[in-house]
């Protein structure tokens, strides 16, 4: 038998106060602790909103001199009239990102399917880590690799494409002798957006309802038929969101493009020539260290344009994800 607990009031505990349930001075002190902590937490959250607002505000403030300056002033002290100056870069940004996505998305979906539905269970997670390793390689390293390895390796292929397939408009023009073209930059970008696109696709593939999958298999469907019947239709909005996220990443990526491509200001869809449209991010990176005065303002204004483009793309992606979460009931 155990003896009952001997009851003594824990008077040593300075915080205990009186016996009743009415708040005492000690309780008030503790409540202050509670509200201070709550305030800190809330304040941090609001700080984030403030930071984001500041990012937008400072870009506007620092960019506005270039946006407001007359074209004549920009021609002498800046890089030239703003819209005409930034348009090719905006084109290059979007064009490089689209090229990258065109290459990355099929591969990403393939990898995601491989990890979620094909690879043996035991090694699926390590394989996921391997793909995540790609995300661990800093962009400047990809840039270095792109310009000194990939460009050299792909140059013969470009020559071949240019010689034999130049009737396809993309492959026309005078092929670059260095391989440092927008296509090479896009390949590097594709490699860089692969991890984020893959991991998002993988997540939605894994969320596909198991019951539907098993039902399809039980009906005698092959694995591929099961994926087409039960997985892909379910995952479509998720894939779209993954593509948008990848696009956001590709649009904003700087170094890989800045290092791989010697970009100019011509708007062209040809991907094998040495006259490539530069991207906004790369333009900023290449010119900012030497820029001063109005030129700096003009580069910041270009950054603002980039910010807006990625903002729209990302918000669209998040909106798709959120909408999907609502009607699928998944969290």
């Amino acid at each position: 038998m155990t003896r009952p607990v001997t009851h003594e009031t824990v008077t040593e505990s300075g915080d205990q106060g009186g016996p009743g349930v009415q708040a005492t001075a000690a309780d008030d002190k503790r409540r202050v602790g509670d509200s201070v902590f709550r305030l800190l937490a809330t304040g941090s959250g609001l700080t984030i909103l403030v930071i984001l607002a500041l990012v937008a505000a400072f870009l506007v403030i620092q960019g506005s001199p270039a946006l407001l300056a007359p074209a004549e002033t920009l021609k002498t002290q800046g890089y030239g009239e703003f819209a005409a100056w930034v348009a090719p870069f905006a084109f290059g940004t979007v064009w490089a990102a689209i090229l990258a996505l065109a290459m990355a998305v099929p591969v990403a979906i393939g990898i995601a399917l491989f990890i979620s539905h094909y690879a043996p269970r035991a090694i699926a997670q390590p394989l996921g880590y391997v793909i995540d390793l790609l995300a661990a390689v800093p962009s400047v390293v990809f840039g270095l690799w792109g310009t000194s390895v990939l460009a050299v390796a792909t140059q013969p292929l470009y020559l071949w494409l240019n010689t034999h397939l130049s009737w396809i408009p993309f492959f026309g023009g005078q092929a670059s002798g260095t391989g440092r073209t927008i296509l090479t930059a896009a390949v590097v970008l594709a490699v860089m957006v692969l991890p984020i696109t893959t991991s998002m696709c993988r997540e939605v593939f894994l969320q596909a309802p198991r019951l539907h999958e098993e039902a399809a298999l039980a009906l005698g469907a092959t694995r591929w038929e099961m994926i087409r019947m039960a997985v892909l239709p379910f995952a479509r909005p998720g894939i779209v969101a993954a593509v948008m996220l990848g696009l956001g990443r590709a649009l904003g990526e700087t170094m890989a493009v800045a290092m791989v491509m010697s970009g100019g200001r011509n708007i062209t869809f040809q991907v094998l020539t040495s006259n490539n449209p530069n991207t906004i991010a790369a333009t900023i990176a290449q010119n900012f260290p030497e820029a001063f005065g109005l030129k700096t303002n003009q580069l910041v204004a270009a950054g603002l344009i980039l910010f807006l483009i990625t903002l729209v793309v990302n918000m669209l992606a998040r909106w798709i994800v959120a909408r999907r979460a609502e009607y699928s009931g998944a969290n």
Partner: protein
Amino acid sequence: MSKRIDVTDLNVYYGKFRAVEDVTMTIEPKSVTAFIGPSGCGKSTLLRTLNRMHEVINGATVEGEVLLDGENLYGPGVDPVRVRRQIGMVFQRPNPFPTMSIKENVLAGITLNNARLPAARKDEIVENSLRGANLWEEVKNRLDLPGSGLSGGQQQRLCIARAIAMEPEVLLMDEPCSALDPISTLAIEDLIGQLKNTYTIVIVTHNMQQAARVSDTTAFFNIAGTGAPGKLIEMGDTDKIFSTPDLKVTEDYISGRFG
């Protein structure tokens, strides 16, 4: 050390939904009161309002009075944290703190409330509480090992030790055995029988045999249908409720004709 609870015209709301309607009851000190009734009848909700734990859930509000020896828990100037220090609670699933040892778990209520005690006093509390929870003999040689290493039944008794280390007036138990095997359940029921000598105990249970075994008083709750609030149907001596209840619906439930 144990206090009496008087509940008067208590209504509990989740947002606009009324979960419990017009409950009036008296819970006697040094006795075990069991709440029984079908799922969703509001018995757990009511239990939580007895130490204001329902406030942890977003949008839960209370109307009415709960008196602890005459002092209203919902009166102005009452601090819910102080209420919970006097009215302990044991949950459905054993929940020892995984980052703490057995000893630290028992002392958690005291150390987390910043009380400073001499080491000897702490050891005394640990031993007394663990003895009070019938766990001392099983764990006295491994007080510094993590509490999560114990079996489910031992973990639940550790949680009881943790609650009684605070020397509460009342001990609320929300289906304390529903996650345990029969042998552990028996150990807990024995323990409840001993604890009622010192505490006011309120236990919610789905298991009618358990209510009959451990409680002195039984309160039966029911709902009219989904979406309707839970109500106190009948309350009285356990022997009477289980042999000759006043109402037909109570008898039907107890004899297993529904629920």
